[in-house]
């Protein structure tokens, strides 16, 4: 499909991540480190999953329940890993905080402190989520994109309206969105002890995973992909609501104290 189309597909899947990286993440070195280590961690998790599932592959192509099992076990593994990631992050944050306090003794007003906390933690969590999303997009979409730079195109029989690469890029974009904002929701939930937020993330991840199984049906991608985007927008909205609430809390706190 030529170089133009190949670049187009790559941008559809990873363009927004690139925008996020350029506008927010690239300004703070620590965020860049977070993205990189998060990507590495999630890629390793996917490799471990493939290793665990290797003896059972290739799966029979005309039954759907082995694939459902694959999705469920992978999601559970990754959510468990996310919780572990949170624990490590918490340890690290405490260490860094005490270190910073000892060295710099910032003379900040509470408002500034709270603002930094809001800015800083959301951005950090978003960076972690972005790493997760980018890992997913690279593993599932970008790795298949090399043939798209050649002259030929490819249509899958079960989704014959759209070229294979385009569908793959669109699904990749949806998952990048879901993963980026899920991380913010999840870590907020763990920090505040909010049950809703803690549970909603695995549920969304599982739902998104199961929705991809709909693509098995003939022309199922016509239903599956819009539903996936519904889930992605839900994640976005929930995260937005959550950040807004924290913003209001911060403002109230600062006006109360200042």
């Amino acid at each position: 499909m030529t170089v133009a189309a190949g670049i187009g597909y790559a941008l559809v899947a990873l363009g927004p991540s690139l925008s996020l990286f350029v506008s927010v993440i690239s300004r703070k070195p620590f965020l860049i480190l977070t993205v990189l280590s998060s990507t590495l961690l999630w890629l390793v998790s996917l490799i471990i999953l493939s290793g665990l599932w290797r003896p059972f592959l290739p799966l029979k192509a005309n039954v759907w329940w082995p694939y459902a099992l694959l999705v469920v076990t992978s999601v559970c593994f990754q959510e468990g890993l996310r919780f572990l990631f949170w624990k490590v992050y918490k340890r690290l944050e405490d260490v860094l905080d005490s270190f910073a306090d000892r060295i710099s003794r910032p003379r900040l007003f509470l408002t500034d402190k709270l603002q930094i906390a809001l800015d800083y933690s959301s951005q950090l969590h978003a960076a972690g989520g972005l790493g997760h999303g980018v890992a997913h997009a690279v593993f599932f979409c970008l790795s298949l994109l090399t043939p798209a730079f050649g002259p030929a195109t490819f249509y899958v029989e079960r989704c014959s309206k759209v070229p294979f690469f385009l569908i793959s890029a669109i699904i990749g974009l949806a998952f990048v969105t879901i993963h980026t904002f899920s991380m913010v929701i999840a870590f907020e939930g763990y920090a505040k002890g909010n049950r809703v937020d803690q549970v909603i993330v695995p549920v969304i991840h599982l739902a998104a995973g199961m929705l991809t199984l709909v693509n098995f049906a003939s022309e199922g991608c016509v239903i599956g992909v819009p539903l996936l985007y519904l889930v992605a927008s839900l994640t976005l909205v929930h995260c937005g609501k959550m950040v807004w609430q924290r913003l209001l809390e911060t403002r109230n706190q600062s006006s109360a104290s200042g």
Partner: protein
Amino acid sequence: MAMGLTRLVAIAFALLLVSILPLHVSLAGEITSIESVPDLQKLMYVAVDGYPCVRLLNLSGEIGCSNPGLNKVVAPIIKLKDIKDSDQQHTILVTADEMEDFFTRVSSDVSFASKIGGVLVESGSSFQHKLTGFSPDKKFPQAQFSPYENVDYKWNSAASSIMWKNYNFPVYLLSESGISAVQEILSKKKMKHETYTTDVAEFNMVMETTKAGTHNSEACLQEGTCLPLGGYSVWSSLPPISVSSSNKRKPIVLTVASMDSASFFRDKSFGADSPISGLVALLGAVDALSRVDGFDNLKKQLVFLVLTGETWGYLGSRRFLHELDLHSDAVAGLTDTSIETVLELGSVGKGLSGGVNTFFAHKTRVSSVTNMTVDALKIAQDSLASMKIKILSADSANPGIPPSSLMAFMKKNPQTSAVVLEDFDTKFVNKFYHSHLDDLSNINSSSVVAAASVVARTLYILASDNKDTSNSALGSIHVNASFVEELLTCLLACEPGLSCNLVKDYISPTNTCPGNYAGVILGEPSSKPYLGYVGDVSRFLWNFLADKTSVQKGNTTSVCSKGVCSKSDEVCIKAESNKEGACVVSTTRYVPAYSTRLKYNDGAWTILPQNSSDSMGMVDPVWTESNWDTIRVRVYTVQHSAYDNAVLVAGITVTTLAYIGIMATKSLITKALKQD
């Protein structure tokens, strides 16, 4: 908050249920599983199997097909009947019955030819019964070598001459699997969007002579971008000739057949009737005669000669006769005695009609020798009463002998007395002469067995100079019909092809599918060539003939591991398939076959100037074949460039919108925080 939680969880679970429910019904059909990126590439770019038409050159120009330049040809596929006027070049899908008209039109209509990017020929079995005849060769093949004046005589009635023209586009004959691959891609198109995808064929058939700009034999041989056509002929004598012995040599009865054919497509030219049926009949006769004792006591010596390169200017016969003149090593033992009689086996595969096998004996000239040969044929025919064979003399209204190696023998020596046995009289009965359709289904094995039987007995009669039919030795000469049938499937089919037991007993073949095209001559021509440069069929014939014409000296056979035997009159046979061969006493030699106008010097070929003493060399086109890197045809689907650009624009738009959204959110948050 609690309400929000319940709502969200409810929605999520609803989605989960929605996703699982439809799956109970929908998983019908096979998914071709893609397990890696190379798998994906194989599904995207479908490799198509088939046989190319390649570029051949002669002294004055080129024939055949090639990519017009240095690049691959990529053109959308269209069926011949769907062609409309358009500026774009297309890949035309032509069926076998449309081929003759199509190529004739291409040669005469320049505007039509300019619309052709490439050609795919479909020659499945469904089209073959529509064709009554198809021959891409000329009306009088190789007429310039004819020893008689009438060169307008129409020997080949189905002739179209299309294989001798020059085409500036690639042509590819699809195999059975190739046809199904192309049909599959074309049928998928009906499911898809005709508006923004096209199915294209990509031809990678760049010929080196096109790249180097050498457009005739002389230029390309100088640049080393081509090689001359030729190969190795094989001769063997029964019984073996003792070169060192001073015994008086017996006069020779020479039996000739050829092993090479040609067609529009280089690798699909079985040549079943013309000339392989004659070759198999000769081998059947040799096999029968090898079981007869007492050849030493006969009055004459039998020599069997199988020539190659005959289709391309009688290269085999001309070089053989030249080597005889030179008294070279290749023909040691033949030169100091006279070749008294020559019998050629031409096409003998279509003699069966109405339950009778009829063959025609064409004489080069009327003489006592040719009369004797025909008499011997008739005696042999009578002795084989049960086989219902009829030998007839050719019509005296014929202008002379049909196109055959004897034309070269006659041109060299007009006094040659020889007979060629064919299954036709006034014109070819083979309606697929030199086409890709002259295969096993075009001949009848019983006709070949009948020809072999009559020739075996004729040769015995000629060698013994004995006209007594009640001779018990004559009656004991029987051709093994199952041997002949097996050999036909070895040389004229891809299954089992050259991997059949009969051939594998003697050699390790490099290809399974017999390509009876002569090919190019590799390396330095010599009577003891490097065997890696000698073709499969030549090596098989050498080993087979050496085995059948050998005599056992004593009871011990020594083994030879490097192809060398201790005694000078011994040769090492079967040295390829077994690690160790056997040494047998036999006179079997390779004779290189290449144009008498060519000379090999220091790794390069040069063309010798015309020599008036070599009349055949004066009219020899000196055929060469271009070198090439790869020959490959792929078929795939392509998007229109508008679509590709739309995808790029979409990607850039998504990225930009995301950037704007992020910046807006950032400023919103900052403003909200600073509001106090």
